[in-house]
């Protein structure tokens, strides 16, 4: 009883808490959050871009001013470039990666579970995946074009292959590192093989699976854009490539910015999904 009382009495006398508060306020004044620093960096870069173009240090052919890019963006959204609007290009790219991702998730997760869970499946799939995974997708694109032609299918197939490996490998790792105690607990509660997979193994591996999807989407997106640069008649990569051939630099810059924005949005979306689906991940329990 006496201690808190004396503390309360001494407070206004020595004034510990007011000084403490000032110190906190001071440090708050100098302390920038990491996010603020990131935002300031972006603003700084934009300012330099604007400055060097406004002072005409660099020719617009090499680097158009931000205003020109914005104007072009408006034009592209309303009128279009190369017979399609920005939306149509974006739509073509997103459809390809969406389809490939959908198929990859549907197939790579079961395959990953099988690799992690079953010795024979590991024997079959491990060398196959490890063989083709290190090959840059663009290196086997020509072969896919020879086999499947230049249509949508070969592009989706290429991206699918690029996404498949990281998801399957991450899933297998997640399955292999499942806590034995949890598996045994479920077994001693009467779990059958399928119940074990559904109630223990898949939820345990979910953080790794989502990380695999994140990595896969990153690889898939860069593969997609690269594939569109080579062989396509629509899509963001095609838009950038054809604009470059006619030295329409503002469209090139705009295309690169949109590609970056989409990649950033996908990454953020997946991180949010990870927080929502696996709130226990990283919790000390």
């Amino acid at each position, binding site marked *: 009883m006496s201690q808190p009382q004396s503390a309360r009495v001494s407070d206004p006398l020595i004034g510990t808490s007011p000084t403490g508060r000032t110190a906190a306020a001071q440090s708050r004044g100098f302390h920038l959050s990491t996010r603020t620093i990131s935002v300031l960096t972006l603003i700084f870069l934009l300012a330099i871009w604007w400055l060097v173009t406004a002072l005409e240090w660099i020719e617009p052919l090499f680097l158009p001013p931000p205003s020109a890019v914005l104007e072009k963006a408006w034009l592209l959204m309303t009128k279009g470039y190369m017979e399609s609007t920005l939306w149509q290009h974006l739509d073509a790219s997103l459809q390809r990666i969406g389809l490939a991702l959908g198929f990859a998730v549907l197939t790579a997760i079961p395959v990953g579970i099988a690799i992690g869970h079953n010795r024979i499946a590991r024997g079959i799939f491990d060398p196959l995946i490890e063989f083709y995974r290190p090959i840059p997708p663009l290196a086997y694109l020509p072969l896919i074009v020879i086999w499947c032609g230049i249509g949508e299918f070969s592009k989706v197939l290429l991206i699918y292959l690029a996404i498949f490996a990281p998801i399957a490998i991450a899933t297998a790792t997640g399955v292999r590192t499942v806590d034995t*105690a949890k598996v*045994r*607990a479920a077994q001693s*509660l009467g779990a059958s093989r399928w119940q074990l997979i559904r*109630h*223990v193994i898949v939820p345990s591996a*979910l953080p790794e699976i989502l990380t695999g999807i994140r990595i896969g989407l990153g690889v898939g997106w860069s593969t997609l854009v690269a594939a569109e640069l080579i062989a396509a008649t629509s899509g963001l990569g095609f838009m950038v490539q054809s604009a470059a051939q006619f030295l329409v630099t503002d469209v090139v810059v705009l295309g690169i910015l949109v590609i970056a924005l989409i990649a950033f949005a996908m990454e953020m979306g997946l991180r949010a999904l990870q927080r929502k689906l696996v709130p226990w991940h990283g919790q*000390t*329990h």
Partner: protein
Amino acid sequence: MALLQLERICAQYPGAAQPVLSDISLSLGPQQLLVALGPSGSGKTSLLNLIAGFVEPSAGRITLDNVPVKGPSAERGVVFQDDALLPWQDVLANVAFGLELAGVPRAEREARAREMLALVDLAGFESRRIWQLSGGQKQRVGLARALAADRRVLLMDEPFGALDAFTRVQMQELLLQVWQRSAKPVFLITHDIEEAVFLATDLILLAPNPGHIVEHLKLDFGQRYSAGESARAIKSDPQFIETREHVLERVFSQRRAIQEQRA
């Protein structure tokens, strides 16, 4: 009623030179609470894993009501050292998990789980997440989960090891109440001598290299508690103290023997 029998059990890990357990025989029936006590390396947990069916013995036979034990099953409930709860389920779903696996309808299994949570003094914690619980609360959820389904035998691997002294005593008394009511055989591992002497109807002392039974004591302090005597009165009874000292002496003499062997 359930009768668990182990006949001349040996166990050896692949690649290991010495077996972890050699020639273990015991039987565990209704109204019995068998406590295995021994230093680390004496094969306590291996013994439990054998009975649970997580590993197979290299020799010998384990039967439950004359049916050979093959692999883990819901008839032998296990409470683990570290709670082994599923963090993607809330407390209620964890307790109801065994019943869910057995296909019990939701309303029924949740009612049963609520009952069990009340039994372990965790009513009101149903929708908590696992990582929001303290160590003692998690251990109690683990116990409730093992009790929720109707087990024939209950196996417990140092279930109270991580608890503070006060919670530990509460849990021991709770276990005796549950055991008394259900009359089911319980197999419990501990390294706490007082806990072992207080709970056991049958106390086996294990010694390492390889794990074997050195002494089998029949005790009745747990039954006296169930009959209404207070825990404090029992623990200060000269007979209790004498037994505790005897067990302590046996454990220490074993340890001395091991040290001499090494030296």
